[in-house]
């Protein structure tokens, strides 16, 4: 194989979004992916393209997310055409329910703070009657006081998104090496060399490490220290049912096939991808307080995934000064950010520098001076 311009480590949603964006811009890109037992958030997530409520502690993240959501419809059109795979993407807006009057007041306060004193553009607060009017086929539980509605929110089938990105990238002439876990990454005179299974090597002038939770371990030997941690989320999914939810809601969405996904927990349990009855019960009970009709539905599956979290929950994009051409890209919300990763972030990587909002996403924001 001729030496590619870029090697991307990790064929999850984040890695292939970038690879697809770079290949579309005339670059030659090779993606390598790991072993079957790797942690793969791209295959376990909830499928929301979600804006409302994000970035309270990091305004640049709120803007970056909103821009990605705005890019999504055109990103979808191009990707569906290139890959021939439909994504089941819809942007009907999204809801976050409040289960008491006080919770509704608190929710408004959180959103107004993000909006700098007023509700952000496209966000409205709905009282119970207004909410019920938007959900005519989903009788609300007695405790539901209302919801916030965000017009920018949407959802997608995350497995179809991943398959389409991989297929689209291949159609554009890209190459993916499956089951090629990188053992070592080292510098050469004119770039980088990766060693894979059986001592095979690959070289390129540019390397993007987008290996989810495995990212820190790959760059640590170069002295690059990334603050990422796992956080487990557990989900339930029901049988297929007649349409009842016309829009995605936080923790509750009906897919194009009619199943209702119910989630999700936030658990600090290290690298444990098990499921527990206690968590399944907890998310199911909350869902029933919102939509009692779900008590008549059958649950067909429960699973968990590990989020890839930085200390403030925002993206972590890093171009270490000592290593020109080397990037690390990781984030929670890789589905939401897929559009902007394939467009703006791919452009910035090509230009060789993070500019604008993305400057706030480097690891330098976590630099805490050590106390003597």
């Amino acid at each position, binding site marked *: 194989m001729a030496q590619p311009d870029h090697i991307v480590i990790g064929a999850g949603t984040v890695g292939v979004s970038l690879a697809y964006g770079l290949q579309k811009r005339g670059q030659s890109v090779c993606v390598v992916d790991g072993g079957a037992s790797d942690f793969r958030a791209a295959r376990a997530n909830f499928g929301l393209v979600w804006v409302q409520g994000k970035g309270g502690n990091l305004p640049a993240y709120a803007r970056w997310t909103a821009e990605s959501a705005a890019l999504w419809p055109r990103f979808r059109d191009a990707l569906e055409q290139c890959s021939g795979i439909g994504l089941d993407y819809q942007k009907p807006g999204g809801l976050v329910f409040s289960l008491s009057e006080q919770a509704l007041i608190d929710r408004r306060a959180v959103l107004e703070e993000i909006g700098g004193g007023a509700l952000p553009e496209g966000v409205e607060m709905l009282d119970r009657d207004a909410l019920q009017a938007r959900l005519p086929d989903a*009788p609300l539980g007695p405790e539901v006081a209302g919801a916030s509605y965000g017009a920018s929110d949407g959802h997608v089938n995350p497995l179809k998104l991943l398959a389409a990105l991989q297929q689209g990238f291949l159609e554009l002439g890209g190459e993916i090496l499956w089951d090629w876990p990188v053992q070592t990454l080292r510098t050469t005179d004119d770039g980088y060399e990766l060693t894979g299974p059986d001592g095979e090597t690959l070289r390129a002038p540019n390397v993007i490490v987008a290996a989810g939770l495995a990212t820190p371990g790959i760059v640590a030997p170069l002295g690059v220290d990334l603050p990422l941690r796992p956080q487990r989320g557990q989900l339930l999914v029901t*049988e*297929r*049912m*007649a*349409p*009842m939810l016309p829009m995605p809601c936080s923790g509750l969405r009906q897919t194009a*096939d*009619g199943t209702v996904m119910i989630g999700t927990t936030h658990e600090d349990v290290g690298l444990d991808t098990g499921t527990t009855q206690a968590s399944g019960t907890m998310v199911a009970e909350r869902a029933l307080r919102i939509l*009692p*009709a*779900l*008590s*008549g*539905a*059958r649950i067909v599956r429960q699973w968990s995934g590990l989020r890839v979290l930085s200390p403030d929950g925002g993206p972590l994009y890093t171009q270490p000064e000592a290593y020109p051409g080397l990037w690390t890209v990781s984030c929670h919300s890789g589905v939401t950010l897929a559009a902007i990763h394939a467009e703006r972030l791919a452009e910035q990587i090509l230009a060789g520098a993070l500019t604008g909002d993305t400057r706030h996403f480097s690891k330098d924001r976590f630099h805490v001076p050590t106390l003597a």
Partner: protein
Amino acid sequence: MFRPLPDSSEGPTVTVFVEGQPVEAYVGETAASVLLRHLGTARTTSISESPRAPFCMMGCCFDCLAEIDGKGSTQSCLEPVRDGMTIARQMSARKVVAR
């Protein structure tokens, strides 16, 4: 198309209601076999609405999902008949209601 084996039709019977019609069922048989005998199918699928009939008769394939005593998505091959049981095909995607 389906009929009982000669020796299975000798024991005691109960009355079940297949989409409203009272029919005789043999104690020990399942709602799925009643459906096979009287209607031939158990359901239509939730998206393409194509017909399905009980297939494995042992709880594996889920092609026998039906409404048993008003409860949807029930594997009819795992439900022995009871006197007065109501059995109905499940058409298309279910609409759930609170239990």
